[in-house]
């Protein structure tokens, strides 16, 4: 029994120390997400894309990927699913959402999973590259979250008379929602988030309808 106690104690002590390390890095992830979040909010008010793009590369992508590099250098794929997933996933999703948001504003298209994977990998060192994991669910969560953010942007764009942007958002969201309907989601939080998207898409359609009956758009 003594040996069992020693083994179990060591196992949990190791888990606790790993968790502390991961939490310290999560603070870094939160910091860069918050800093970029402020610029994102600024865009909702002034629609200055250049400033948003600059802050995206300098305040989000670089520091976020640097922290991911630290994490994945220390921990491999098994450790990711064992220790990191529930701590890092939420931050990762917000990063994906921000990337999809900025990319849409730049190019009016969806930043694909493989392109996003390449973007992150380009910032990682060699040891981290072999360990890096980008779960597909994180990308899908990011897609769902960007729908909500773009709905909000559509509202603000209409307020500021950027009707072309509102139309582009509507087309993009319809396309994105149609694409996401191809996926058979399992019964979890992601499915519930997806189910709520139809109200966001409906809201944007309603905005366009309002604009068209008032003949503000062709």
């Amino acid at each position: 029994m003594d040996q069992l106690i020693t083994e179990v104690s060591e196992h949990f002590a190791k888990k606790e120390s790993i968790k502390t390390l991961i939490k310290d890095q999560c603070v870094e992830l939160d910091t860069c997400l918050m800093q970029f979040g402020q610029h994102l909010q600024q865009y909702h008010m002034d629609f200055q894309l250049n400033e948003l793009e600059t802050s995206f590369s300098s305040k989000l992508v670089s520091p976020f990927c640097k922290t991911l590099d630290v994490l994945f250098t220390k921990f491999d794929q098994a450790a990711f699913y064992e220790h990191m997933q529930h701590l890092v996933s939420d931050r990762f999703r917000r990063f994906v959402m921000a990337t999809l948001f900025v990319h849409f504003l730049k190019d009016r298209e969806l930043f694909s999973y493989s392109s996003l994977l390449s973007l992150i990998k380009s910032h990682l060192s060699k040891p981290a590259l072999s360990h890096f994991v980008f779960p597909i669910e994180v990308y899908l969560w990011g897609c769902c979250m960007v729908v909500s953010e773009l709905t909000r942007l559509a509202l603000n764009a209409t307020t500021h008379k950027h009707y072309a942007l509102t139309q582009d958002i509507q087309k993009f969201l319809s396309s994105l929602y149609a694409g996401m309907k191809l996926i058979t989601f399992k019964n979890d939080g992601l499915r519930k988030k997806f189910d709520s998207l139809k109200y966001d898409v409906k809201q944007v359609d309603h905005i366009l309808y309002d604009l068209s009956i008032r003949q503000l758009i062709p």
Partner: protein
Amino acid sequence: SQQSSSSSAPPQNPSSVGSKRSTSTRDGPKSHDSRPHKKQKTISSSTDPIFSLFQGLSVEYERLVNSEESAYKLSRDITRESKKVISSLQRYHGKNHTVLDQAENALKKIVSTHIAQLQKVMDDYDKAEYTYFLFHKKFSFGLEEFMEGLSMYWYLKNGSLISSKEVADFAGIHIDTHDYIQGISDLAGELMRYATARMARGDKESCFNATAFLQQMYQNYMRLSVEGALTYKGKESYRFKMRAFLQSTMKCEKLCAELMARDAEKVEAKSVEAK
């Protein structure tokens, strides 16, 4: 006026599903197949890059979900078979060794069938170590139940707690520390039932032995708590199991006390009669 016919232009918006099928509604009697479907998986005519992106993603996502479902089903099978083993072990009374032999065979069968299939599901997804942790939430409850059955069998056969090394020797598999601890924590409830059943049949020795074993185990749990393992914040379930363990131990202690009191009363009654 004609509705959409085959000569109409394809719709701009790819989300208008069913438009391809609805072109034939006026051409003949309506059939089941001609009705537009609520959800259509593939529309090959769509040139939207987002559509093709999500077609690829959906294949990958379904592969993951199917593997998780298979792991979950196998875990339920393991749980069911392990519960049968535990029920059969409750009938053991020290002399009917066939019960132990049958339990051993049943446990080995669980390993060779269900656990082996579980390993195959993980290997089919990806032959890498991370798949164990990827699917762990889906199959951990099955392994815990298996550990409970195995530890009860080991206790009835050898009178001791099975170690993780002995699990690996018996079953040929490595069980994660989390599943091991959760499994042996559940042993208290089963041993409490066993002690109660043995006491009802007049087997005081089994009752007292089970109680002593549970008391020793709980004392070691206290050590884990003191040394910080069970304050591991991520696992509220450990503290819950510890509480349940204590309750089962206390029930066994109460049984033993009542037994001793009854025996003492009988001895007293006999001595009074003798006088």
